[in-house]
């Protein structure tokens, strides 16, 4: 047989279908460890392999999907990883009789990686290594990583695979109905990241049927020249009488197989619900067909877990935010060492809001001078983790220390850029090895042990040496950026010209370029003016990416204007949109006119800044603005915007609650200023969790939200009898009564309360809610309205109040 990658170039390879269900159909108990069957039920496993081969599979998969130490531990078999995998590979080899390829199946570990879970990245790599080493020893032709939904876990698996052997790896992720993985990764990001780390093919398996996987594979095909692989379920699972069934017929699967092949998919198989009959039909449909040709331009693509940024002509120059640099910003390092994450987090968010495409992270603080002994690698790891939690931009790992670079790359969830690789032998080879291992792109620095080359030609020659080494290591040309080196104009004015000449020369040879802008203005006054001018000149030479402060409005405006003049921004759409951006969205730093208090309060409430809103309210009071005017003119508009964004799904329930809390804090401060004078009320609402029920978190949240909107709340608490609710409603002259219950048993009490109210002749509107309460149930018991969550409650109350007015 040809090597599998050779065969893949000639024609589509058909992979087998589901294993677990076939084993169960053959008599393996449903709760038993399926992988253990290779030891105790070898004939059964051999039989499944034989059936798929007979159906026309070119690749059979070992029965090792969950044969890692963590999954096997659930059956007390963690000590059998080596034996099970080796035996499974041996069985498949035996079944194959050298006529088909054997793929070692490797599924998820069943544990979440840090920071989401407890599993560290090195521990994940080690667990995969253990399984893959045994599969390789058992003689598999390739490895299939399957059904992984966390991009970082897929990275760990690929890194492990490349460490244990040179066997080609096909990396599949699994996607949900929204077209992303459970942790939010879209297919194009998955394809780019996994291909970069060295997968021989990328693809998708499980979770969805062929119909739903088609757009996912299309998205992968658009960004990757890699061979593709797809293993759909036989349709979406349906639950019938408590049993999961898959309904796609072999014929339907076959027609999709042909469509996948036309898209350029080279490996087509089946996952849950597929049988030898499906595989036979698919094999017949695409037998010996050549995968469709794809034309994907070689473009630099960098990713976070959820987002891809590519360097295509019209995007240039990409903006790389430079603010998170611990070597020059001691305050960041000091805060971080004291576990205060706010400065770094806020810098990340501010840069993202100001239009950065990527964020540069430099953790090279001199920690000794701060009285700490934390390594740069450790700091880098913390910064990467923190920034990834704060924004969804791809990262640039900025360090000259290979240990710190490795720590950053290991922690990075997506595909990073290394800043930078100089022409110094030792660091060069170590950094290039890291770039290759972690699939990172690189910035080349034309800097050798002999210092800074003084002419453009020398700089280009120096950079080309590094570039050649990188290409020899297998790094692609599109993944290399070159820095022409920027010097301070104040110290060496003639060097500015050399930098620009280097830039022109690099571009004339077809290389991609990047530079750190602000060095040029070092030592000069009004640095932002100098930076803006230099950027315009560099853009004129074809600069592809710039490391700068995106919150510097002047430089950003120069960049946007430059994009108009270079026809990158046709019709000046972005430029005009940038000028029109509302005050709240404009960069926080170096603004020409200070943001108004109203804007600040608005922004604080929208961000849910409970602590930050209080001093702002105090500042407004100090300016002599009346509490009521602060409420109506500053807080109410923010609250309305929160409601609007929630309705448009731009804000989510917990964010809305957090914003409500910020408003509560603001109100509390206003009330103190009002010294007992009452706030105007929109109406009175009695709220209670009914008798027998003690779950009142939902009701409490509704109370908070309603209070913010100016309603007076009488909260009776939980476990409240019907009579007490009716008494309180009568006593307080409530306009509306709100009832909450969490359980099917206690929700019946709502009906009792309504009966009690009506018995007393009380006509107040009653609204109900709770986890199990539906609109239909609300109607049935005679309630006037129903809210599914705290986000709907204000709308409901307004509706009930206006009903009242129109009927009275």
């Amino acid at each position, binding site marked *: 047989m040809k090597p599998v990658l050779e065969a893949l170039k000639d024609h589509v390879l058909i992979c087998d279908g589901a294993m677990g269900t076939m084993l169960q159909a053959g008599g393996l108990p449903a*709760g038993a460890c399926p992988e253990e069957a290779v030891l105790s039920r070898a004939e059964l496993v051999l039989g499944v392999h034989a059936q798929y081969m007979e159906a026309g599979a070119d690749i059979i998969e070992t029965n090792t999907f969950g044969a890692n130490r963590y999954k096997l531990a659930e059956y007390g078999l963690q000590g059998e990883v080596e034996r099970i995998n080796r035996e499974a590979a041996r069985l498949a080899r035996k079944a194959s009789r050298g006529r088909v390829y054997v793929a070692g199946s490797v599924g998820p570990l069943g544990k979440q990686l840090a920071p989401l879970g*407890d599993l560290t990245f090195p521990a994940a790599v080690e667990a995969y290594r253990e399984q893959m080493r045994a599969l390789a020893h058992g003689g598999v032709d390739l490895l299939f990583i399957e059904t992984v939904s966390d991009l970082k876990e897929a990275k760990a698996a690929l890194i492990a695979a490349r460490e244990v052997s040179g066997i080609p790896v096909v990396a599949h992720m699994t996607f949900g109905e929204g077209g992303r993985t459970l942790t939010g990764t879209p297919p194009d990001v998955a394809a780019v990241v996994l291909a970069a780390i060295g997968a021989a093919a990328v693809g998708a398996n499980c979770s969805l049927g062929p119909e739903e996987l088609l757009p996912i594979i299309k998205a992968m095909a658009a960004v990757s020249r890699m061979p593709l692989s797809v293993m759909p379920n036989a349709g979406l699972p349906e639950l019938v009488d408590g049993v999961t069934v898959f309904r796609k017929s072999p014929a339907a699967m076959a027609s999709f197989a042909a469509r996948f092949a036309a898209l350029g998919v080279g490996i087509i198989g089946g996952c849950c619900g597929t049988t030898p009959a499906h595989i036979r039909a698919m094999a017949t449909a695409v037998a010996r067909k050549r995968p469709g040709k794809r034309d994907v331009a070689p473009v630099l693509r960098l990713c976070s877990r959820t987002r891809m940024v590519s360097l295509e002509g019209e995007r240039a120059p990409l903006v790389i935010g430079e603010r998170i640099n611990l070597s020059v910003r001691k305050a960041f390092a000091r805060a971080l060492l004291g576990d205060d994450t706010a400065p770094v*987090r806020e810098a990340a968010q501010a840069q993202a809001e100001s239009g950065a495409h990527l964020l540069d992270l430099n953790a090279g603080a001199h920690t000794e001078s701060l009285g700490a002994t934390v390594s740069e690698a450790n700091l880098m790891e913390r910064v990467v983790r923190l920034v990834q*939690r704060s924004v969804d931009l791809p990262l640039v790992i900025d360090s000259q220390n290979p240990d710190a670079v490795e720590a950053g790359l290991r922690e990075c969830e997506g595909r990073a850029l290394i800043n930078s690789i100089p022409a110094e032998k030792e660091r060069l080879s170590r950094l290039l090895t890291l770039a290759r291992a972690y699939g990172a792109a690189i910035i080349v620095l034309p800097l050798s042990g002999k210092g800074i080359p003084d002419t453009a030609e020398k700089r280009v020659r120096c950079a080309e040496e590094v570039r050649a080494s990188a290409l020899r290591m297998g790094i692609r040309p599109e993944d290399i950026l070159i820095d022409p080196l920027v010097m301070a104009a104040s110290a060496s004015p003639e060097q500015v010209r050399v930098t620009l000449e280097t830039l022109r020369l690099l571009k004339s040879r077809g290389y991609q370029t990047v530079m750190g802008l602000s060095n040029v203005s070092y030592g000069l006054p009004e640095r932002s003016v100098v930076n803006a001018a230099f950027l315009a000149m560099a853009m004129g030479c074809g600069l592809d990416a710039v490391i700068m402060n995106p919150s510097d409005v002047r430089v950003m405006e120069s960049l946007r204007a430059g994009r108009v003049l270079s026809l990158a921004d046709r019709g000046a759409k972005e430029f005009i949109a940038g000028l029109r951006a509302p005050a709240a969205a404009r960069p926080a730093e170096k603004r020409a006119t200070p943001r108004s208090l109203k804007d600040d309060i608005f922004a604080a409430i929208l961000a849910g800044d409970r602590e930050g809103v209080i001093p702002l309210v105090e500042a407004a009071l100090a300016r002599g603005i009346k509490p009521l005017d602060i409420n109506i003119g500053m807080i109410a508009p923010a609250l309305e915007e929160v409601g609007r964004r929630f309705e448009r799904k731009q804000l989510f*329930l917990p964010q809305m609650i957090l914003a409500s809390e910020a408003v509560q804090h603001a109100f509390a401060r206003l009330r103190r200023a009002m010294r007992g004078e009452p706030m105007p009320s929109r109406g009175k609402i009695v709220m209670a969790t009914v008798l027998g029920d*003690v779950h009142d*978190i939902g009701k409490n949240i509704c109370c908070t939200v309603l209070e913010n909107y100016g309603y007076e709340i009488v909260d009776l608490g939980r476990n409240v009898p019907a009579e007490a609710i009716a008494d309180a409603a009568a006593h307080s002259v409530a306009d509306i009564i709100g009832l909450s219950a969490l359980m099917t*048993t206690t929700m019946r009490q709502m009906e009792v309360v309504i009966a009690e109210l009506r018995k007393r002749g009380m006509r107040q509107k009653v609204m109900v809610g709770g986890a199990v309460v539906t609109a239909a149930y609300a109607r049935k018991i005679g309630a006037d309205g129903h809210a599914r969550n705290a986000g709907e409650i204000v709308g409901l109350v307004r509706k009930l109040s206006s009903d009242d007015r129109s009927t009275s």
Partner: protein
Amino acid sequence: MVAGGVIQNAVVEGGIEFEVLRALVLRRLQVSARDEGRLGKVRELLDSVCAAGRQYLAPAAVHATVDVAHCGDIEVSFTGTAFRVLSRDVASLLRSCGEATLMALTVGPAVTREIEHFMAAGRMTEAMILDAFASEAAEACVERLCAALGGRHAREGRAPTRRFSPGYGDWALDAQRGVLEALGAGRIGLSVNEQNILAPEKSITAVIGWKEFVQSA
């Protein structure tokens, strides 16, 4: 035959290992995992509340595996306990089962107290996140327990049914009291009030059946 009281072979287990999937906590908060990056400050709270949340969880379970003595249309009785199930749904679930496991699990009262503290302090967002986290933790613990039991049974050729809890289908919520009594769940601090609400709040009772698997030739 034991007329009442606690099933003799009921096992108390503490220190159950578990893992709470963040995507599931987000789902309870009505946020899809893909939108996590758009949560702003809430994301930080999610991190800190979930990380700190674990210290308030002390999962403990008590379970007993008993023979199914009789399985009628609506009534199921077991060997070694006077506890009976009255439910068509459970009866059909356990129809071909030789054995069944009754279980009760709690993650303990501390987390509920912490949720109340948050509410009392007006920190509703934290309260809501911790509530979702604790509920998912209880589910995760039961899943882990079932997987461990399943492994043991599988080696003896038995496969599990679905897990079924009082309050679902036609199995009345008041069955919880019987389950707790049969298991002696007071030993793990688990009780039920007059309205059949479990205390501590984040607790689960359930039954799972084990059917003999027909071995192939």
